[in-house]
């Protein structure tokens, strides 16, 4: 807990003094969502869509601005801010720039969202070839700010081979070099989250860009081309110090989140192919980090399918009050809410269906859903969950080929923060199948004021 004196002293930088302050922030009125044409057959650049999320506005639930990237083929994917609550006490900083990496092009676009929040503009490009030359990295993924500086995980070297590493960028968006002092014996990279009060970072494993970018060959899992480990880092020394081998319980461990409480030593990861939630934690008198499987979504047996269908739990987030965990099953088509008051024993408190291959909710609010729940972002107060349907263009094309003509959708789920429970909001739907240049696909979402996957407290 942050005491009152500290809260009063830290008033001037970006973000919030504590998770409790973040929950009390004004509600989001704009959403920034990346939308792509890469892999769709439409020869247009990917873009950053601004969505009106103010229910009192005449353009509520509509795309109100599109910032196109300079060229085609980036595959915009995840995004991150230049600054968050980790520099709340630095009055010289502000949450002004959203960084948009192109996972295929390797370019990183720095977008100014503060000058006109409804119509963001391109501020700077960190050139993908320069990143390859200076840091030998490709396949950018997760962005976190480090006080005033930024680190970005990359899944490959310049030739797209694992394990990649971490790019260090300064506050002027210049390449400093590699952030990691060593990758140790880490075979693959993907997501990471750090918890500074415990000098720890946890990273996960997807695969080399050359493995996952072309699409998913299931047989490559058996050839150990996909990850099954979590890695514990000494954050200050910038090197891995412990491996948690998850085995069959943790095939393709993707998103990693600590609880927001900066004192907590508990966190979660979703193992996409195993469709399990992995809980990791450290006990007070034990230096070793431990893990356990706490949720196991069973594969579905479909008639005529030779291989049972996994949920593909590709994303996960924790509400700002650390009470609820949200996970998806992209191929089954459900979003789930778990009460994690006891992180060892999550309790399923909500579930809704949208799209998916099981055919349980092919249409939501009048929009045909091609794809399943994939990326999602929760409001700071925990009540509105915005969910999009595209995973990666090549994987979309394998599992949901109809997304080419139908595009992606964004759905809003109302979440009951008192008693648990989820329900699709009937007044909100953004159908990216109706975009002016043709059907596009939507991926990660952020809010101008920060969200439930952007901020870390020192």
């Amino acid at each position: 807990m942050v005491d009152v004196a500290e809260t009063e002293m830290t008033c001037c930088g970006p973000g919030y003094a504590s998770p409790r302050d973040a929950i009390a922030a004004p509600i989001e009125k704009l959403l920034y969502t990346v939308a792509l044409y890469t892999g769709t057959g439409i020869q247009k650049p990917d873009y950053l869509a601004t969505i009106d999320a103010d229910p009192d506005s005449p353009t509520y639930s509509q795309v109100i601005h599109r910032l196109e990237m300079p060229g085609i083929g980036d595959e915009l994917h995840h995004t991150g801010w230049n600054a968050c609550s980790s520099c709340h006490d630095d009055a010289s900083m502000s949450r002004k720039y959203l960084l948009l990496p192109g996972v295929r092009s390797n370019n990183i676009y720095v977008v100014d969202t503060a000058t006109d929040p409804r119509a963001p503009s391109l501020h700077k490009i960190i050139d993908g070839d320069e990143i390859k030359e200076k840091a030998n990295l490709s396949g950018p993924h997760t962005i976190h700010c480090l006080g005033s500086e930024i680190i970005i995980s990359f899944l490959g070297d310049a030739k797209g081979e694992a394990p990649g590493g971490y790019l260090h960028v300064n506050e002027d968006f210049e390449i400093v070099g590699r952030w990691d002092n060593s990758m140790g014996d880490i075979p693959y990279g993907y997501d990471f989250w750090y918890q500074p009060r415990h000098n720890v970072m946890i990273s996960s494993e997807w695969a080399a860009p050359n493995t996952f970018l072309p699409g998913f060959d299931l047989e490559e899992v058996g050839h150990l081309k996909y990850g099954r480990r979590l890695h514990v880092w000494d954050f200050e020394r910038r090197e891995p110090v412990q491996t948690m081998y998850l085995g069959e319980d943790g095939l393709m461990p993707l998103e990693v989140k600590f609880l927001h409480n900066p004192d907590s030593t508990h966190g979660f990861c979703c193992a996409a192919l195993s469709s399990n939630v992995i809980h990791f934690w450290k006990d007070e008198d034990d230096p070793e980090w431990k893990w356990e499987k706490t949720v196991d979504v069973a594969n579905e047996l479909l008639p005529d399918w030779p291989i049972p269908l996994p949920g593909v739990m590709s994303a996960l987030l924790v509400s700002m009050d650390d009470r609820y965990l949200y996970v998806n099953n992209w191929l089954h088509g459900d979003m789930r809410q778990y009460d994690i008051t006891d992180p060892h024993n999550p309790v399923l408190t909500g579930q809704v269906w949208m799209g998916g291959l099981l055919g349980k909710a092919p249409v939501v609010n009048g929009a045909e859903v091609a794809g399943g729940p994939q990326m999602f972002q929760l409001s700071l107060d925990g009540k509105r969950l915005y969910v999009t349907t595209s995973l990666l263009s090549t994987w979309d094309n394998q599992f949901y080929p109809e997304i080419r003509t139908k595009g992606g959708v964004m759905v809003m789920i109302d979440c009951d923060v008192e008693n648990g429970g989820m329900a699709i909001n009937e007044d909100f739907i953004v159908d990216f199948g109706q975009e002016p240049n043709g059907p596009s696909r939507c991926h990660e979402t952020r809010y101008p004021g920060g969200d439930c996957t952007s901020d870390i407290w020192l």
Partner: protein
Amino acid sequence: MDTWTVTVANQGGATFDVDASRPLLETLREQGVDLPYGCRYGGCITCAAKVTSGKVDQSEQVALNNRQLKNGYAVLCVARPVSDCILEVGVESHDELYRNPFLDPLEPHELKPDIATTTGEH
């Protein structure tokens, strides 16, 4: 300079003379063919096209598995022609490029060349 003639079958059968030493993505785009692309090093299949006649050298590619290669796909960002070729380009040519791996698994010889068994015989 060695050149070959490339026909783009699904863009009106237009023909282009291209430099044999350079990737087809570059030489065709320079002549106005609108092609998709992503990584530009042979790793991501965004630029995949189907070679329906002729032969290309794409030894640098690391993205296609043996089934995709058998079906005639080439990644144009690293593929260089070694004969006159007929291509189908863009997502219109991708009918056999993508498959649901749970519905239609690969045989061991159909994996990517670096991990495939060397023959289809068991």
